[in-house]
């Protein structure tokens, strides 16, 4: 359960950085690097999240669909 909570928390951070990027895209009108920086964070955290899921799976902390 703790592991799933962490996964959801990171997903929340990913969504937050995505929408912060949207905000700066509208506000800064292309004049700053804020948008591309937030999007870089977004992709970095997403890849980190996938790696975490795969590590969690290998260590038996989480299982896809119990069939």
């Amino acid at each position: 359960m703790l592991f799933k909570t962490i996964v959801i928390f990171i997903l929340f951070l990913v969504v937050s950085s995505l929408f912060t990027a949207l905000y700066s895209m509208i506000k800064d009108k292309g004049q700053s690097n804020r948008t591309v920086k937030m999007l870089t964070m977004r992709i970095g955290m997403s890849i980190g999240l996938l790696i975490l899921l795969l590590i969690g799976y290998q260590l038996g902390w989480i299982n896809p669909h119990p069939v």
Partner: protein
Amino acid sequence: MSTQSGGYYLPAPSHWPIVGSIGLFIMLFGFASALPGTSDGEMGNMTMMYIGMAIVAFMLFGWFGQVIGESESGKYNAQVDTSFRMSMVWFIFSEVMFFAAFFGALFYARQLSVPWLSGEGNNAMTNALLWKGYAGDWPTNGPASVGGKFEIMSAYGIPLWNTIILLTSGLTVTWAHWGLKKDNRGQLIMGLFLTVALGAVFVALQAYEYIHAYNDLNLKLTSGIYGSTFFMLTGFHGLHVTIGAIMLLVMLFRSMKGHFTAKNHFAFEAAAWYWHFVDVVWLGLFIFVYWLV
């Protein structure tokens, strides 16, 4: 052509809105006419719907092409720029609501309505009298087993590969974005090309996965609540990947023609952001549909 008066941008009269209206009308009229009139569920002739879709595509191509031409010839002022950005916000708002509805349907079925059928909450009699013995385990096609026995897709295999492909395309589009910001046109073009190519691979693998689901797993759109939520979510996501890839393809062609600068590139940034959005939707899908049961 455009005229400016008192700082307000006044576009010249255009035939594109009426072309779009006619296209949409013919498309929806064609669709409604083809809907099954009897309970056998057979769709009628959909030719008119396709003609409407072709007119809409023609309108989009022509209208956007004209806007790009006007933008490149320097006709637009700061106010037009703001209106483009606000339009993007509303477009994204509608997209978020769209996916929220389908994710909402998944959560509602999984956390509430299916457990109720198995007797949870104050529904003990529902289970005892109507669906005796139904345990409500997810994934399910309901107590009546609508669509027959099915198997689900394993998270390992194509769904995992598709996640890796889409996340890699998120990397390449970010790399292209940095290329534009640093006035490195080669990096911009290469990054966009790789992103579009990865998007195409994703859609192809998704199509392969659907064929596998239909032929080998008996997992279909008609497989009860699981089948319908699975295909509606992944199918509409796939459609959005296709739309995003078309947008980025246009950005690729425009980059090759020398459009966009480090300070003036809203179309690119909006399309790139949209790609990130579609990527995050997939990540959410992958995690909720395949992992967090």
